[in-house]
């Protein structure tokens, strides 16, 4: 794998290979010495044009557990703001000998632009670009679902027949896009639930079902319900009237939690707005996988860096 820019078009076998290696990496995380020598001498740069402490430290932990050298480059702010700077920054990192660059950017497509530019030779991992994709989040979500369903028998399995309902701000969500492509590639059946304002205007190319009605979606008894974070500024832009109405219509409150089958997983990519899209009881219930997702994130990112830098899977 040369780069990881999107989950769209990621072949099923390759996705499963990443998840399987992540299982091995998870085993490392349970040892007393949580470290492998695999990427010794490799340099991984975390290039963040947008703040995201959670994602950055997850990638940092992943690279360090594989013994890579890690450099954090926070490019957010006035010094790196416009135009030429993406090129300059990329060329600077190339000159420093980066083997992989983990990019978080507020602009959709920026990692793709870097990968195609010729400015830098390193493998590029998309750590979230604008409202486009967040492939490692989808991989860790798939990993988490698989583990909950199949436990230690997870290796080699896909998500055939698993029903996943994703609820909330789909149009602005890179997590939703990456999950739609990856989970459906793995055989899951995905349903999106949101008000029309928060759905992309044209879903003709998406292999999903769409509903406006969360209660109806819950009544179908999905295996997984994934709640997305709702940002406050959406209210100002007339996507919905106010937090109270949103919460009432599309929040996973206690009543809806009770209506869910006891076997359903409750997922959230974090950070959560407790009381808005998810109630405290739902977030803290045994059905919630929120902390598993964080834990698994490190294993999955180790696997991605391993695939990118060890040349184990060539495309």
């Amino acid at each position, binding site marked *: 794998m040369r780069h990881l820019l999107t989950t*769209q078009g990621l072949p099923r076998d390759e996705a499963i290979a990443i998840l399987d290696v992540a299982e091995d990496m998870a085993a490392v995380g349970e040892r007393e010495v949580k470290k492998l020598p695999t990427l010794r001498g490799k340099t991984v740069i975390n290039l963040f044009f947008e703040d995201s402490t959670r994602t950055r430290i997850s990638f940092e932990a992943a690279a360090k557990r594989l013994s890579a050298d890690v450099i954090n480059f926070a490019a957010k702010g006035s010094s790196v703001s*416009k*135009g*030429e*700077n*993406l*090129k300059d920054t990329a060329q600077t990192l190339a000159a420093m000998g980066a083997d992989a660059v983990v990019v978080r*950017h*507020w*602009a*959709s*497509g*920026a990692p*793709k*632009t870097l990968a*195609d*530019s010729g400015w830098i030779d390193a493998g590029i991992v998309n750590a979230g*670009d*604008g*409202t*486009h*994709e967040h492939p490692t989040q989808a991989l860790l979500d798939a990993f988490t679902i698989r583990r909950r369903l199949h436990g230690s028998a997870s290796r080699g399995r896909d998500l055939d027949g698993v029903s996943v309902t994703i609820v909330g701000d789909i*149009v602005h969500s*890179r997590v939703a*896009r990456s999950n739609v492509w990856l989970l459906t590639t793995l055989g899951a059946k995905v349903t999106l639930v949101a008000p029309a304002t928060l759905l*992309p*205007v*044209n*879903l*003709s*190319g*998406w292999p999903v079902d769409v509903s406006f009605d969360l209660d109806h979606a819950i009544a179908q008894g999905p295996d997984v319900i994934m709640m997305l974070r709702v940002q406050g500024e959406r209210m100002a832009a007339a996507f919905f009237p106010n937090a109270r109405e949103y919460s009432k219509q599309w929040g996973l409150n206690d009543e809806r939690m009770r209506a869910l089958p006891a076997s359903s997983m409750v997922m959230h990519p974090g950070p959560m707005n407790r009381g808005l899209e998810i109630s405290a009881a739902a977030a803290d219930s045994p059905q919630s996988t929120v902390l598993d997702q964080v834990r698994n994130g490190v294993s999955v990112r180790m696997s991605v860096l391993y695939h990118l830098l060890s040349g184990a899977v060539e495309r």
Partner: protein
Amino acid sequence: MSIRIVNATLPSGESADFTIDHGVFTDDTSADRTIDASGLQALPGLVDLHTHLREPGFEQSETVLSGTRAAAMGGFTAVFAMANTMPVQDTAGVVEQVQSLGNDHGYATVRPIGAVTEGLGGTTLSEIGAMANSRAGVRVFSDDGKCVHNALLMRRALEYVKTFDGVVAQHAQEPTLTVDAQMNEGAVSSELGLAGWPAVAEESIIARDVLLAEHVGARLHICHLSTAGSVDVIRWAKARGIAVTAEVTPHHLLLTDELVRGYDARFKVNPPLRRDEDVLALRAALADGTIDIVATDHAPHPPEAKECSWAEAAFGMVGLESALNVVQEAVVDSGQLSWADVARVLSQKPAEIGRLDGYATPFALGSAANLVLIDPSARSTFSTASLRGKGTNSPYLGRELPGRVMTTIHNGYETVRDGEVVDAAEVADNARCAATEANNV
């Protein structure tokens, strides 16, 4: 110097020989120089109603000299220069300066477009009368790049411009529907996670403005029409007798939003590349006359404006050098437009809309000698070597296109000879002689 052109094919399809002397077509049969135009298609000099020359203020992107060299290379002999310069072309002084730069360089007639509102600010009318009555004789007014979105101001602009036989060229874009918009809103934008620029933002402004034009009895021109819905609105307005004209760019006749998938900012343009259905509707509308003209919206930018993430990149593409090739590819080779139609949509009609003299009766004895000879059978890969302006932000780089401009003649002298732009000093000399002769007549 007189030039005789033999064995040319006229737009009508007839073969003809003609002679040019002292800037006009004459019936002499002898000349200082003869061009054998066997196999070449003759067209009247092309007129671009929508060019960004960037001077004054943005000379790193383009100058009047570099932009008119690009124009000559594409077969253009006249360009209308958009008003979004710095300072803005909103006073007589600035428009006169731009026009005189064009006259001095001599590659093409430069007709400045005046801003509708002061500083393109959208609040106060600019000195439209002063610009109309200046030496530049401005007849086209536009805030292009920005929409005159205030309905009352648009109404007044239409009325006031009518006073001077001018026309308002509207950049139709409802700003509240296109905040931070990055590309056509549709299936592709939904996947790519780029903020959408919906067709309705264009169509709603056109609908409003044709009704305003009807109400006040003024002429209206719509810049760079890009959607099938806009075509329907214009068709309806014309059927109703409203004095509206419309333009389409070459890129909207050929390219679609599928090209955005690679996030290559060369394909970032405003209005954005649309769907296949839109491209087909625009071609049909150009063929049936609903769309009156093709105009380039030539928008040069320096490399750094495109070497960045999509959202950070500037909108715009260069288009002068490739316009004829793209029109041939999109609508001539497909049989939708004849060369006579091309002469109409790229020369006669834009000149008429812009009140530019000398283009009404091309090739007629005594009329101005503005013409282009092209080799329609040529095919080549478009590259930066095909460009003569400063901008390299062409969406066609690496693409094979038909046609090649072999000769461009502006006011009786060559600006392109044997497929290459003529030296600037020679062109400027010839321009000076032509101007002197014109003054002596």
